[in-house]
């Protein structure tokens, strides 16, 4: 890479790198945090920087560069003093993000992805940033700006041109609303910090309560939380440093979901309390929160909340005076990788590696973080566990449906009057959600995100529950003015950006799917391409290594079934051959009329000429 700093880091850079390495004890497991903190100081990760970090951590340089190259939010090229990334979820687009980004690029004399000649600014897109209820949204140097308008674009362009530091930008630009529209058992929980810990009886009794409550994983897969904790509790740590871990999966990357952001903004204590309860049950002394890079702005408030809890003896040694109840929590920042929402990819990332999913089994409950027994739970699951610890299993089990206890937070966005967070007991009908959020003329809901289910009006009586439609919480609404092909195509592009590249079916399949969708979009598609799409989706589903690839074709498959005309109107080739010979179908009439004029035959010139036979009509029978 031809760059001044490639010959060696400057003394100033070296001091920064050294300070960060010291802060993390040169621990290779903490590579992600080291890279992020160095990049925050130096702006980018130059070859010399990577070499210095490799030296300081004792890792091979290729490993360090491999990690830096994997995550969207690490850059090994300078991308300008201001790095603007527009959230490219379909909900942002529906709110006009494409035009606004074009306006910004035009005003800055930039093309998307390009760095300005003075190295001041670059503008590009990124996957959903979790601000769907207040878009169009963007990140400036990984800080979220919401509710973008043309006026705000002009203001930002001006601030960038005048090189105003981000801290001096108007605070309202960075305002992130919670937009909680409906509260139920969890959001109305009314718990004070420490309530759940004070209510704890023995670990076994707590585990029994979690099992009896019927709590299931809120990330979408719905595995029994009590069972997971039990497996983890019963597993034995191994090696020189045997331990158990609790991991909170806050890598909320599914397009259209933002409920974990709200929980961490408004109910962080409840989440930390849930982690502590989990630690108590499984016998862990350490908990890790894996916070997605897009939520970097939450890091300081969350660390402050952890400090408060330590001061109140809700974390640390002998929590609330219980001898042997030691537990602390640390926050680990992700760096822009959807695949890290998959629990084993998340664990790899936590260990300072590329976020490539592991083979399962063994499962994290026996071989998780650093190979030790680990309970990985969603943010909302942990918050619910804290609630159950106080209110009891029977109370919780009474909410929801037979197989889906409790409530679910839905992140509602798209075409509705009141986007935001809606908490419902499980079993709520899709049409109820639509009515409550003020959606009109709805033609489709995309539930559970890009990898989820596209639901058409005939299915609006279906219910949100593990028995019917399971979801991590994403609920995107599309009214009659929307083009469902464009929605599916947006998701097809998303999966290309987010495939980790490890397995061929997913790496190649997501791109083939994107190419087919682009071909149809450009008016070159035909029936062949539709057939090809089905073939690609089948391969993705059956041959991919992890859930990302297995579900990457879902939205295209759903829209092909339920919104097929939106594809067909873009097709231009319709090949079909009858199963019988058309010309011979006139044989009897030729016989009885004695006609043999051109009108008594079919000349299907185009078909014959294709096979090189010529344009002569078939012989009369």
């Amino acid at each position, binding site marked *: 890479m031809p760059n001044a700093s490639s010959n060696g880091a400057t003394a100033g850079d070296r001091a920064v790198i050294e300070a960060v390495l010291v802060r993390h004890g040169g621990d290779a497991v903490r590579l992600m945090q080291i890279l992020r903190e160095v990049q925050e100081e130096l702006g980018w990760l130059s070859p010399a920087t990577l070499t210095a970090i490799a030296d300081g951590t004792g890792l091979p340089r290729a490993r360090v560069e491999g990690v830096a190259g994997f995550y969207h939010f690490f850059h090994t090229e300078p991308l300008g003093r201001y790095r603007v990334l527009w959230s490219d979820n*379909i909900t942002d*687009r*529906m709110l006009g993000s*494409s*035009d606004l980004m074009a306006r910004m690029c035009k005003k800055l004399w930039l093309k998307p992805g390009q760095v300005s000649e003075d190295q001041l600014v670059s503008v590009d897109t990124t996957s959903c940033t979790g601000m769907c209820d207040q878009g169009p949204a963007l990140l400036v140097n990984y800080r979220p700006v919401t509710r973008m308008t043309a006026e705000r674009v002009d203001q930002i362009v001006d601030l960038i041109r005048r090189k105003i530091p981000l801290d001096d930008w108007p605070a309202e630009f960075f305002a992130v609303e919670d937009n909680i529209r409906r509260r139920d058992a969890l959001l109305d929980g009314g718990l004070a910090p420490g309530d759940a810990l004070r209510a704890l009886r023995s670990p076994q009794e707590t585990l029994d309560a979690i099992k009896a409550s019927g709590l299931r994983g809120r990330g979408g897969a719905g595995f029994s939380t009590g069972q997971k904790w039990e497996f983890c509790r019963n597993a034995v740590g191994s090696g020189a440093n045997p331990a158990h871990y609790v991991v909170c999966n806050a890598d909320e990357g599914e397009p259209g979901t933002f409920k974990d952001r709200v929980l961490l903004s408004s109910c962080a204590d409840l989440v930390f309390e849930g982690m502590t309860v989990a630690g108590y049950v499984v016998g862990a002394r350490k908990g890790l929160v894996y916070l997605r890079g897009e939520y970097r702005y939450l890091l300081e408030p969350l660390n402050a909340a952890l400090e408060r809890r330590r001061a109140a003896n809700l974390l640390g040694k002998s929590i609330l005076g219980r001898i042997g109840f030691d537990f602390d929590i640390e926050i680990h920042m992700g760096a822009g990788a959807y695949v890290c929402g998959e629990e084993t990819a998340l664990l790899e990332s936590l260990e300072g590696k590329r976020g490539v999913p592991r083979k399962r089994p063994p499962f994290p409950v026996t071989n998780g973080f650093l190979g030790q027994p680990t309970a990985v739970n969603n943010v909302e699951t942990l918050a619910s566990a804290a609630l159950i610890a106080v209110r009891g299993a029977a109370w919780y089990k009474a909410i929801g449906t037979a197989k889906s206890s409790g409530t679910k937070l839905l992140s509602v966005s798209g075409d509705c009057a009141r986007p935001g967070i809606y908490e419902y007991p499980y079993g709520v009908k899709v049409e109820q959600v639509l009515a409550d959020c003020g959606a009109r003329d709805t*033609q489709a809901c995309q539930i559970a995100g890009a990898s989820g289910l596209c639901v*058409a009006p*005939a299915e609006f009586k279906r219910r949100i529950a593990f028995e019917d439609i399971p979801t991590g919480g994403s609920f995107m609404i*599309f009214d*009659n*003015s*929307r*083009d*469902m*092909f*464009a*929605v599916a*195509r*947006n998701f097809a*592009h998303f999966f290309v950006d987010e495939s980790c590249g490890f397995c061929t079916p997913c790496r190649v399949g997501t791109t083939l799917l994107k190419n087919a969708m682009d071909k149809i*979009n450009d008016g070159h598609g035909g*029936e062949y391409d539709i057939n090809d799409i089905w073939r690609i989706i089948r391969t993705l589903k059956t041959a991919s290594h992890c859930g990302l690839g297995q579900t990457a074709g879902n939205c295209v498959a759903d829209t092909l*079934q*339920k*919104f*097929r*005309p*939106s594809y*067909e*109107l*873009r*097709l*231009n080739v*319709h*090949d*079909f051959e*009858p*199963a*019988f010979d*058309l010309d*011979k*179908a*006139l*044989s*009897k*009439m*030729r*016989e*009885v*009329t*004695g*006609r043999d*004029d051109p*009108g*008594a035959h*079919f000349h299907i010139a185009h078909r014959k000429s294709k096979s090189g036979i010529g344009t002569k009509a078939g012989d009369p029978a």
Partner: protein
Amino acid sequence: MNAATPVRRKLKVATTSLAGCFGCHMSFLDIDERILDLVELVEFDRSPITDIKHCSPDCDIGVIEGGVCNAENVHVLHEFRKNCKILIAMGACAINGGLPAQRNSLDIRDILAAVYAQPGRGVHVPNDPEIPLLLNEVHPLHEVVKIDYFLPGCPPSGDAIWTFLTDLLAGRTPTLGHGLIHYD
């Protein structure tokens, strides 16, 4: 990529009746004043409604009533398939051959012989080249060209046709459901 909201142009719709009785077209007119809403969304191309004789090359939707019983039907059907992005078989005859297909159990030569028999003077089947020859058998549309959608009924009700077309125009896979196709 384009935005999620498409630029709305009027879609071109062509219609015709092949071996049918025009009953489906009459039923189509039962959408009554909604035809005014429809012309806001579509422009009629070749159709008995416009009397345009041939399809424009850029039709979006072709709606065809009746099956295929003669050579001219085949030519018209090919013209529709060539020029329309989406082709709909409307009504029982288009989908199954319907009433005209009742002749399929007989040999066309025997039928013609019976019809054109002149006592004492043998059989004279009209053979003017202007008259399209009949096919040996009547075929439903999908046996001759690819058909994208089937709108059943004899005829389908005006409401069914309206729902079907408006779904299609909005990009939704049409679903008729109770009252429009299910009656029990």
